[in-house]
């Protein structure tokens, strides 16, 4: 009798880093297209889906805003992922930055003073996001509580804090809609004509990339973060407290994500609507996809962000039988991310089929 057995074995030499993301993108897109084709009973012609993606690809000026925001969030999450601290709380940090920035613009009395308002929005936004992330890091740092559920559940707490503020004290008084007043135009980021991007967002994206690159490669903190991710025992041996590294990594990560929160408010939204848990652009979650697809390399983050922003825009282009872009985009993102999460091990491992004869 002949028996086949699948065995996972280590490769002698790992595959080049760009191979797996590309394969995952192709296979994931194929799976998503097939799933959508069969589930809608053939109503979603694969050609329409691919046209939607190609259309998004051909109009780069429309994806720039998502591209920039996703790059910032991706870079932010990457900083904590490098330390093997899995920050799933991007959404919460994003919204805390929005809360602080909205407070500056609407209620501090400084919202109409140019330069001061945007500067303060950024400073306070980043501080709030950083503190929210710091809070999430404490249970992991001191008690060893897994940070994944903690950061994840804190997203929902953040949503409800936003809901509380906007439903109650911050509600606009003119029409009594469940939203804040519109931010004063002096605090809006300035649009680059012909695109969805703003000047400030462009600058902040470059700053975030350069900051993260410099931090991780040329500073003591960056070194500690990278060592924490590869071998925390080394840190203990040389006398560095791992809890400090966890706290620093998550706080910096939250602050960088906060840049995206402030930019989203000042570039696009200009006010907060609730319920936050359904009005979110979910960049905190899609940013995870960006960070993972980048193989945790900063130079690949913009590429991954570009691919994901194509998918986001394509989802809006494609409307199947009333199922909005939200669902279609999620099928694409889910399939690609799933295939990637599985295939990523094959850059270091391969499957061998062993034939056993008895």
């Amino acid at each position, binding site marked *: 009798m002949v028996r086949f057995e699948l*065995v*996972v074995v280590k490769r002698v030499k790992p595959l080049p880093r760009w191979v797996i993301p590309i394969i995952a993108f192709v296979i994931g897109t194929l799976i998503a297209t097939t799933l959508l084709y069969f589930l809608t009973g053939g109503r979603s012609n694969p050609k329409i889906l691919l046209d939607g993606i190609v259309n998004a690809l051909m109009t780069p000026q429309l994806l720039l805003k998502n591209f920039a925001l996703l790059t910032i969030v991706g870079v932010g999450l990457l900083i904590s992922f490098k330390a093997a601290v899995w920050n799933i709380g991007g959404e919460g940090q994003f919204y805390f930055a929005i809360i602080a920035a909205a407070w500056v613009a609407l209620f501090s009395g400084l919202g109409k003073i140019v330069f001061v308002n945007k500067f303060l929005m950024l400073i306070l936004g980043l501080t709030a996001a950083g503190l929210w992330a710091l809070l999430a890091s404490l249970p992991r740092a001191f008690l060893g509580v897994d940070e*994944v*559920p903690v950061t994840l*559940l804190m997203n929902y707490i953040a949503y*409800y804090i936003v809901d509380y503020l906007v439903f109650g004290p911050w509600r606009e008084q003119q029409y009594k809609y469940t939203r804040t007043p519109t931010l004063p135009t002096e605090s809006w980021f300035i649009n680059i004509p012909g695109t969805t991007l703003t000047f400030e967002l462009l600058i902040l994206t470059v700053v975030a990339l350069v900051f993260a690159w410099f931090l991780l490669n040329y500073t003591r903190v960056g070194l500690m973060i990278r060592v924490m991710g590869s071998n925390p025992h080394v840190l203990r041996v040389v006398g560095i407290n791992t809890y400090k590294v966890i706290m620093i990594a998550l706080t910096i990560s939250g602050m960088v994500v906060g840049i995206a929160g402030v930019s989203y408010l000042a570039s696009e939204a200009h006010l907060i609507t609730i319920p936050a848990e359904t009005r979110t652009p979910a960049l905190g979650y899609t940013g995870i996809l960006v960070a993972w697809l980048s193989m945790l390399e900063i130079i690949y983050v913009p590429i991954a962000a570009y691919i994901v922003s194509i998918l986001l825009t394509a989802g809006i282009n494609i409307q199947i039988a009333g199922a909005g872009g939200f669902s*279609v985009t999620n099928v694409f993102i*889910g399939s690609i*991310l799933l295939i990637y999460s599985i295939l990523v091990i094959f850059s270091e491992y391969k499957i061998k089929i062993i034939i056993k004869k008895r």
Partner: protein
Amino acid sequence: MDFLHLIISATPLILAYYLTSLGHSIVEKSGVLNLAIDGVFVLGVSIAFSQAIYTGNNLLLSLSSSMLVAIVIGLFMTYIVTKFPVSHGAVGLSLMFLCYGLAGVIGVPARILQSTTGESIGYAFSPEGVEWLYSFIAIVVLGIISHFMIEKTKLGAMIRACGEDPLSAEALGVNVMMTRLIAALIGFGLMGLGAGVFELYYSRIWREGHGVGQGWIAFSISLSSGRHPILGILTSIIFGLLYEHRFSIVALGLPREFAEALPFITAILAMVIYMSTPLKRKLAPPKSLGKPFFKEERTI
């Protein structure tokens, strides 16, 4: 309204939360970190809804479809994270996104059909009836059986061993893959059933995105109870009541959002307490929860 009425009106929700959180507890006891729970829940809700529309409100068929789909996803996830050294969190979250999407794509045509026929689905518990009592008896019986299964039977010991230290368990002759698949079969079946109950006996409406976040509430209920089937009854009742009556809580001077955020706050506090006090022995998460189970093979 007295307390009994408060309980009766929240019963379908409590039942849905309990089934889902119990399923989640059993899956995580076997060492598989289940971040797909919200996606599976939302997909289960959508399947139950569309089946009820297409089959003329056949409740049994709708519930079993939602269970079946949840089981298929659960077995797939469990197989992948046990066979390959992949991140449980990554696979779980990507499945969550995929399920969110599939739920929309599957549910929307049924919703369009419903808007033309005007058919209503599900079954509402009558306030004078005794369905609520049967539900609670079912909850208690299920809780006791699950507790007995996990603590006293061989299967339960195997499931716990796979969660604590799968490599040693394997060395002692436990088939980790098979044990986790059985746990997933039971756990995801319960989750799918919970989602079906939520849709058919509690909300009875559907629109795109319906149920998003409810899976995380069940997740918090499970974590707050330290994945304990009997304690889970208590946390399900508390958070089910709070969620159902979140608008009445305003009368007590508390904002509605506080009631909505409380399960999440409690879950985080519970995790902290269970890790730092003697309760750790019984209620801390399994030691190998979410860790890759992988026996390195030599290159041949």
